[in-house]
């Protein structure tokens, strides 16, 4: 998943980005609203993590303008204010959730998953894909009760497909979701990860559309 983190405190931004990258997410950092605008115009993000007090303006006003422009990516506000009014103002401005600093990284993960699940329209965090049981919250895949270990990058790739079930995803879309700006991508890296995923999860769930990209069959919510 490609995430844009807008945070002017470089140390906090780097440590959060490092954590998310460790989870297999692609994170771009923007220290101000101007950079954030440039990033948003350059590529598509699935999630925006937004601090409210930024050097070149209020994150809240910027968010309102962004929503008014029709950008509907998921937004989580990272606020240092404990005020209820500010939190509600954030939600009214178009945020999907908020997190008050200081926060647990685990809680950040949980919020990101919940928000992205809601954004993708998935009702449950428990999915079934053929004989696979997928727990989005625990980032776990099992087959007949047996856990299948995935690396964070493999999970991130699976996560992209799970959020776009039945959709044809091009190679560049997949690369954009997996790699931040400046990341070095080998020409066949994507194929390597897809091959590994197929080896671990089976071949039937993912269809290759030659010259176009890949399409995952629709997963269903487990009962």
């Amino acid at each position, binding site marked *: 998943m490609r995430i844009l983190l807008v945070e002017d*405190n470089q*140390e906090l931004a780097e*440590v959060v980005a490092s954590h998310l990258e460790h989870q297999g997410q692609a994170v771009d950092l923007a220290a101000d609203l101007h950079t954030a605008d440039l990033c948003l115009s350059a590529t598509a993000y699935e999630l925006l993590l937004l601090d409210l007090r930024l050097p070149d303006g209020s994150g809240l006003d910027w968010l309102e303008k962004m929503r008014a422009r029709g950008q509907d990516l998921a937004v989580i506000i990272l606020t240092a204010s404990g*005020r*209820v009014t500010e939190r509600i103002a954030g939600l009214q401005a178009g945020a999907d959730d908020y997190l008050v600093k*200081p926060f*647990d*990284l685990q809680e950040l993960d949980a919020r990101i998953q919940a928000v992205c699940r809601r954004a993708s329209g998935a009702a449950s965090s428990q999915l079934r894909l053929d004989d696979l049981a997928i727990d989005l919250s625990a980032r776990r895949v099992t087959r007949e009760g047996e856990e299948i270990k995935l690396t964070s990058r493999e999970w991130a790739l699976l996560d992209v497909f799970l959020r776009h079930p039945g959709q044809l995803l091009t190679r560049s879309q997949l690369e954009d979701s997996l790699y931040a700006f400046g990341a070095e991508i080998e020409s066949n890296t994507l194929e390597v990860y897809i091959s590994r995923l197929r080896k671990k999860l089976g071949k039937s769930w993912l269809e290759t559309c030659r010259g176009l990209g890949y399409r995952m069959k629709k997963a269903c919510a487990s009962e």
Partner: protein
Amino acid sequence: MRKRVSLQSLLLWRLGWGLTLLWLLMVGLAASLVYQQFNQMYDSALQETGERLLPLAIQEIFNRDQQVNGQSLPALNEHDEYLTYRVINPDGETLLASHTAQVDRFPVQPRLGFSQQAGYRIYTAAAVSDHYFIQIAEPLSQRREFLVRFLLVLLAPLGLLLPLSLGSSFLAVRQALKPVKNFLGQVESLSPGQLTPLQTQELPAEIQPLGQGFNHLLARLDRALQAERRFTGNAAHELRTPLATALAQLQLLQQQLQQPDQQEASRKVETSLKRLSQLTDKLFQLALAEGGGLLVEDAYDLLPWLRWLVNELPEQDQQRLDWQYPEQPVMTLMDPDALALVVGNLLENAFKYSPADQRIQLQLDQQGWLKVINAGPPVDQAELERLHQPFVRCRVEVQGAGLGLALVSALLEGLGEKLILRSPASGRYEGFEASCKLKVDKYAGSSD
């Protein structure tokens, strides 16, 4: 305590009394002057009469056929005799007298000029080388009667004019004080959170500086409160961000630690960091609660906010909460952040001190009474009193800074309300009950 004096009644009393006294003084002076002039006029008339009568009386005595002392002249017609006289010789023997003259009215020995005796003004004149004296007497009661009539004539209109002038003074004073009263009305109707300037244009020039001074004071207070709030907000931001960095870095590090002792040490650091974060949070809340700005100008329904606050509780806490609220909106003037601090801290306290398997009651009624009840061993009265102070905890084994209830107490005090703590809870043998009256706008939403 000294009774407060109303400026209006003070002015009215003083004006009323001053006017009355001045009027009476003027009447007294006029009466005294008139009486003096009147006395001179009467004396002059008495003297003139005496001097005219004396030759006639002497002629009468000389013309007598025989010397008869004490002869009383008969009246020609029946009449009241105001002036009486007698003619005497140097020995004081009466030679001639008017028909109602009584001897005891007159001095026995003749004394020339004016004298007074037995309620009579007497004039004595001499003739024929002091062989004959005339004494003419006029009753003083006549003069007094004149004075009384004169006073009555002066005082009678006063009875009408005085109430009239007092009434008009009352109206004038009330009219003059109306702008002052309007200004005071504005001051009295100021809500604790309202710091907007008051209208001073109508105030009289003498009071205008006071009104403007009051407005300047309000503006300074507003600026000071805003600065304090800004400082609190900035300080919270500045402290929370490095705390967030430290916590995130530590948690990132924990993911790489392999040794159990290292993991244990890092968990302890994490706990301390979280405690520091909570303490900082509470201190800022306390500063906010004591800093004022706890009311908003427009009333709003607090129920959606309360629902939102309850929904923000962790899932397991929501499961343990029984809450009752009225069906009608409860319109409040409390700042939503202040409301969140009260509800949040009372609930946090209840969840912290209640046994994990017991339920928590949250109740709100139409009048704005909020009650949070939790189970637990009873707390004695002295301990309950101490819980209003910061850094006091009921049970040391429970984690916390002991600031939650102090914070709510300070906040409510700023709103003119009180936090009431009871243990055992009402109608129970155990438990703890915290209740308070939220600032409800009784006028808002009361219409159909």
